[in-house]
């Protein structure tokens, strides 16, 4: 059948193809530069030089749908400020929309939003990097020191690089020990204060009340709930773009062993709390659940539909050998002021209002990172009457207990845990078996983004 194809035109086509290939391969051989991607700027310029300011000019704000009503409220109380509000995904659920767009803006040299909200706590890592980092160092005369000092201890750690603060924190997601007070009372158990007691109770539950759960290891943030609290050096920044990853450390293996034993017995689930299966079959059997502060309303109340007056929070657990109890953190939003902004004054004023004001943060959905607003927020939580006990002391205590040895990185620990550890657990491996694979996954990913791993 190929006889129908005119020979001459096939030859032409081949000639054309050969010519194109030849040209491309010539270009390919004519190398005169290094193929290494731009080496990441290791140190940012010492002093931040704002662009020429235009007083009273319009500022563009990017925020997610949850934060936009807050920005609109700011506009109402500040009618003279010219605001353009753009709704975007807010980088929720592992998206990197802000970074994608900023990369394009960097190429064309225009378009950056003056203010941006991100729900991804790791976004500070890239926003503080590059020739001209997107984020302005807000500690350099953009936001007053007194305001920055008002945030909870360590709350600005994910924003701090090379001694500068590149963002302010919207909310904290400090982990506490959630428990069902009604069930605990019914079963006659007391709330554990150490991980050892927690493990013992987990084993006891299996015997006395099989089916009830004391935790889950199948959530993306399980690493941040258990391993961060255990002070496991899985993500310890040791310098600019330098990170230490050592999952063979005893602080990691102790937690892996603890979870493995409870998974094997059945009181720690391999499922994730938001899956339909878990909500349908396991939610009412959750006796205890170490997890972030937003679990209270978002998970127990809205998703699990546990009735009022049952859920309570206890202090983060500690290991018997340790002197102090530490906890981890699951997410938390960030506010950026653009280093390219022509109206830094308006931009920083908006960011300050959004992150610190009682008017907005006091009634927000999540625990405010700003201490004074958190007090108002907790009072409002108490008014809802959902919790069996006032969660204020526990929330305030744990906000200051976040172990500082776990740093924000440009890659997401959650994504690595979900795609590496959870499938392994579900194929029957133990966490202890998986530590090496997990270590490799973190190391490879870190190196691919230009980190030095040691």
């Amino acid at each position, binding site marked *: 059948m190929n006889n129908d194809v005119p020979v001459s035109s096939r030859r032409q*086509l081949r000639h054309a193809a050969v010519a194109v290939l030849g040209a491309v391969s010539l270009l390919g051989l004519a190398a005169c530069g290094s193929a290494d991607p731009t080496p990441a700027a290791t140190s940012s310029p010492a002093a931040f030089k704002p662009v020429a300011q235009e007083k009273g000019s319009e500022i563009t704000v990017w925020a997610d749908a949850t934060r*936009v009503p807050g920005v609109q409220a700011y506009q109402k109380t500040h009618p003279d400020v010219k605001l*353009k509000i753009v709704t975007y*995904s807010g980088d929720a659920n592992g998206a990197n929309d802000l970074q*994608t767009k900023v990369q394009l803006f960097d190429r064309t040299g225009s378009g950056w939003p003056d203010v941006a909200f991100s729900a991804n706590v790791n976004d500070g890592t890239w926003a503080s990097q590059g020739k001209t980092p997107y984020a302005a160092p807000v500690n350099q005369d953009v936001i007053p020191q007194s305001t920055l000092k008002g945030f909870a201890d360590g709350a600005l750690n994910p924003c701090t690089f090379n001694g500068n603060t590149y963002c302010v924190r919207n909310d904290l997601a400090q982990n506490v020990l959630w428990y069902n007070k009604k069930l605990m009372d019914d079963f006659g158990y007391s709330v554990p204060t150490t991980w050892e007691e927690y493990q013992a109770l987990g084993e006891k539950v299996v015997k006395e009340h099989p089916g009830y759960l004391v935790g889950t290891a199948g959530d993306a943030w399980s690493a941040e709930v258990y391993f961060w609290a255990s002070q496991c050096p899985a993500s310890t920044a040791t310098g600019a773009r330098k990170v230490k990853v050592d999952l063979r450390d005893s602080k990691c293996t102790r937690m892996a062993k603890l979870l493995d034993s409870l998974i094997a017995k059945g009181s720690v689930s391999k499922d994730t709390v938001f899956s339909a299966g878990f909500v349908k079959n396991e939610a009412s059997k959750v006796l205890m659940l170490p997890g972030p502060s937003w679990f209270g309303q*978002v998970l127990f109340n809205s998703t699990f539909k546990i009735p009022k007056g049952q859920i309570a929070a206890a202090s983060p657990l500690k290991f018997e050998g340790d002197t102090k109890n530490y906890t981890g953190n699951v997410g*938390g939003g960030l506010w950026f002021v653009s280093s390219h902004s022509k109206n830094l004054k308006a931009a920083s004023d908006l960011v300050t209002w959004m992150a610190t004001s009682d008017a907005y943060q006091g009634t927000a959905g*999540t625990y405010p990172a700003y201490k004074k607003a958190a007090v108002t927020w907790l009072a409002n939580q108490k008014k809802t009457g959902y919790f069996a006990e006032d969660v204020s002391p526990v929330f305030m205590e744990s906000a200051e207990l976040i172990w500082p040895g776990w740093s924000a990185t440009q890659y997401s620990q959650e994504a690595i845990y979900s795609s590496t550890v959870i499938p392994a657990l579900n194929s029957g491996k133990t966490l202890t078996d998986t530590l090496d694979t997990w270590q490799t996954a973190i190391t490879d990913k870190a190196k691919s983004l230009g980190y030095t791993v040691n």
Partner: protein
Amino acid sequence: MRRTRRPRSLAARLAWLIVMGLFTLFFCVPVVWLLLATTKTDSQIVRDNPFSFGSLGEVADAWHHLYAFQDGAILTWLQNSALYTFGALAITLVTSIPAGYALALTQFIGRRMLLTITMLVMLMPTAAMVLPLYLGMNAVHLDGTIWSVILPFSFFPFGVYLTYIYFSSNVPSDLLSAARIDGCSEWQVFRLIAMPLAKPVIALVGFFNFVGNWNNFFLPFVMLPDSSQYPAQVGLNNLLAASPLFNTSSGTGNQIMRPELALATLVTIVPVLIVFLFSQRALVAGMLAGATKE
């Protein structure tokens, strides 16, 4: 229109019924589930039988919640989507149908090269095209305008190929030669001979162009700087990101849960289904025309 054929054996009919039944189930069960999901509360969706029916009142509730999202943003998204897709559709039809026709039924130097280049460009992964397109739009100062979406949407090599294959395998060039001998100009040949035969392929090209653009997320996401310009897919992405299901920092009091997402999904696919039905009619009408062509 079809002549009666020999009766088929019972076994053949049974096999046909079984295969078609299985595939109908495969394609439809999830869609039926989605329809039912809008009639239930979030908790019912998770806890009840997947095929249970809730109540119509729930549909109304879900719609109220959905409409309340950013003060009726969903309608703006649909309007924008319609503007971009229909704008692009018009340009696509005007450019790709004549192009496909010319590639199939006229003679010109560079015909093969054009076919080859079209194929080459069609095979280029879109991820690599985003930056060049963005820089290009920026260079001609069209970034941020509706044209930065409509113009790339109008470039539809897939449709050119469909038209090309359709004309080259269905319309005999002798038919056109006869018309030329009768003194028709090239334009008349196209207008009077080719176009009446082209209905099915116009329907196909129009339909695929519409659906592809309607469902395109990445290009409008990259090009449009303003949320009032968002089309449905970008809007839906924001809706998804606002739901506590996917956004742990969304906090409470958020009404966007599974029923609202299911409803939003259905609302945004209605235009696609309408266009499908229209194009199907054209496909059948064209088929009749095709049957009498000889």
